[in-house]
């Protein structure tokens, strides 16, 4: 299998926040934590664009590189996950992430941070699959159920796509050919690098 990837088509996102709501509900994410959010650029002006942002599960994940306790790992499908039992809530991953994906619950006084929480690509975490412990710490494990992330699967305009990188890029390519514009994919080069050029 190739790598699991997210793709957000800014030409289609209508800023409905359905993806945000779906994620919060599916994983019962606590108040104050946003694993996914919609960002609008040039809001209210002609040509405004919205994009749905979460952890992009980068090829060379900077959060994994800077973690002082090595609590990050990558699954065979390229999903970047972390062990909450190991996380010390230092916040290094937040500073390293180009997408602002890591979230920290404010558990105590004086801005004390709790353990980091982020999008899991609906793949749970290092607990027994479909167990109570996994749900409590990481949310539902939809990948183990043979499903894709809910944010993408229920996106009404199919602006947000998730799945095998080859399949997702094929769908997007098809779409761009049909509409004849909007070939730019926000965040892909930051998350997955530039595609290798032939003969290079």
């Amino acid at each position, binding site marked *: *299998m190739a790598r699991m990837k997210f793709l957000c088509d800014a030409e289609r996102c209508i800023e409905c926040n359905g993806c945000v709501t779906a994620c919060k509900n599916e994983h019962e994410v606590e108040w104050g934590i946003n694993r996914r959010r919609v960002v609008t650029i040039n809001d209210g002006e002609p040509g405004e664009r919205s994009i749905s942002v979460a952890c992009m599960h980068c090829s060379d994940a900077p959060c994994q590189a800077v973690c*002082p*306790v*090595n*609590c*990050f*790992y990558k*699954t*065979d*499908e390229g999903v970047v*996950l*972390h*062990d909450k*039992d*190991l996380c010390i809530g230092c916040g290094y991953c937040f500073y390293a992430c180009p997408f602002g994906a890591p979230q920290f619950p404010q558990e105590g006084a004086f801005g004390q941070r709790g353990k980091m929480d982020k999008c899991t690509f609906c*793949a*749970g*975490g*290092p*607990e*027994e*699959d*479909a167990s109570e412990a996994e749900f409590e710490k990481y949310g539902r*494990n939809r*990948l*183990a*159920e*043979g*499903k*894709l992330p809910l944010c*993408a*699967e229920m996106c009404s305009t*199919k602006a947000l*796509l*998730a*799945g*095998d990188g080859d*399949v*997702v890029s*094929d*769908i997007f*390519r*098809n*779409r761009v*050919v*049909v509409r004849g514009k909007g070939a730019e994919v926000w965040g892909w080069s930051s998350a997955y690098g530039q595609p290798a050029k032939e003969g290079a």
Partner: protein
Amino acid sequence: MALRGKLILSGAFAGLILATGCSPLEDANNGKGYAGKADTPAFETGGGQYTAGGFKAGDKESWEETLNVRAKAQNEYVRTGDSAKAQ
């Protein structure tokens, strides 16, 4: 004499604190990468009571096929049967 001893002790203590605080963070797993609990691959357990797609637990190929079918279903040209646009 007692004062001098206290000064030496407090100086040594401050030095120890500084040395500990300023030393680089140690790699929690001696440079071996991930230090947490092992995770089971997503295809192994079968997903529990909400499993979709009919793949068998432990069968990686059928699991991947299930996910690919769902991924391709995100193409609305395929969903609507618009073969002129679906490529």
